[in-house]
């Protein structure tokens, strides 16, 4: 089948539609009366929820941290402060997502709009990477100078091992939570479930778009 035949076939299809397709005017009028709703509403709601939960968590932690700035509470205050900082970073990413959602426009070019949408979905993983860095501080907040002073050699070994392990794991995760590892077993275990499937598919789509643009 040559070019001309393909186009003639499509024209025949067009003519058939022209003859047999009708628009339901009543439904059309109903549709024009509908209030604005966006297909991105669930994504916006998810980001707003994460911002809300983050703010609540930061407020609670801030309250306790602000009352812990004493010599005995110094570990709690510093660990809590670090956790607050990582959560602030994560909230900034979620706010950035809301800004991106506002910028998605269907009348943009197909590549432009689809790239924005897929980037938006795929970047959820950035917030998760940052949040993993706070893990070691959940293992240090309950220490106190008095507790450390009375700890023996074995106790110190346990503390150093656990803290060291948490630091190692969190840094390893921060560096390795990357789409280049998405085919690996640990990655699939960590990011299983419908909410992450969409994110992973979005990343794959971004690669396809890049391939499409390359020719």
């Amino acid at each position, binding site marked *: *089948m040559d*070019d001309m035949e*393909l186009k003639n076939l499509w024209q025949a*299809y067009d003519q058939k539609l022209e003859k*047999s*397709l009708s628009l339901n005017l009543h439904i059309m009028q109903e549709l024009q009366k509908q209030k604005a709703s966006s297909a991105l509403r669930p994504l916006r709601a998810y980001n707003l929820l994460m911002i809300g939960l983050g703010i609540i968590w930061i407020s609670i932690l801030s309250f306790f941290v602000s009352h812990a700035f004493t010599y005995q509470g110094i570990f709690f205050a510093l660990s809590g402060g670090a956790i607050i900082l990582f959560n602030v970073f994560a909230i900034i990413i979620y706010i950035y997502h809301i800004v991106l959602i506002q910028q998605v426009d269907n009348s943009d*070019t197909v590549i432009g709009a689809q790239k924005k949408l897929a980037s938006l979905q795929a970047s959820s993983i950035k917030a998760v990477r940052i949040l993993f860095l706070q893990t070691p501080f959940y293992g240090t907040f309950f220490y106190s100078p008095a507790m450390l002073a009375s700890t023996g050699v074995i106790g110190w070994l346990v503390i150093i091992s656990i803290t060291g392990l948490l630091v190692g794991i969190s840094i390893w995760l921060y560096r390795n939570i990357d789409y280049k590892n998405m085919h690996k077993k640990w990655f699939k275990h960590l990011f299983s479930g419908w909410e992450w499937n969409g994110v992973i598919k979005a990343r794959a789509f971004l690669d396809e778009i890049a391939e499409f643009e390359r020719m």
Partner: protein
Amino acid sequence: MVPQQTADGFLRIITENKGLIYKVAHLYCSNDEDRKDLCQEIIYQLWRSFQRYDEQYKLSTWMYKIALNVAISFYRKGQRHARAQPLTPDLLQLVPDKEPDGTEQQIRLLRQYINTLHELDRALMILYLEEKSHKEIADILGLTTTNVATRIGRVKEKLKQKFANTNN
């Protein structure tokens, strides 16, 4: 409240271009129910965007951008959009042909083959078959004209190959 003149203008545009919407929806949805939803979603998004439509841009370029973006997003989501107020009857109704001719089977095959293409190649092929210029295709998709020409060549080859395999 939208002025009546705007609503009437939009209705006229949709009536004149209903085939465009149906064809795009048909190539991204094989399921009847989903297709019905997709047609509604495309028209709804066109309506939302219509009030901001800048007349210095070609109407067909604007319509294709929205129709293709909505269809690709719908297809990628892999499920029906949960609209706030679903409208059950068909917005676009197709009366079946009383006397189907020989081209019916060929058209079905062509649609079927385009359906197997990657979603971005599908958009490219629709625009090519609609006889859009390389410049307009590039404007709609956001590619360079050179890229459009190269990709069209490749996708056409794939389609011809599929037809050749069917005929053999």
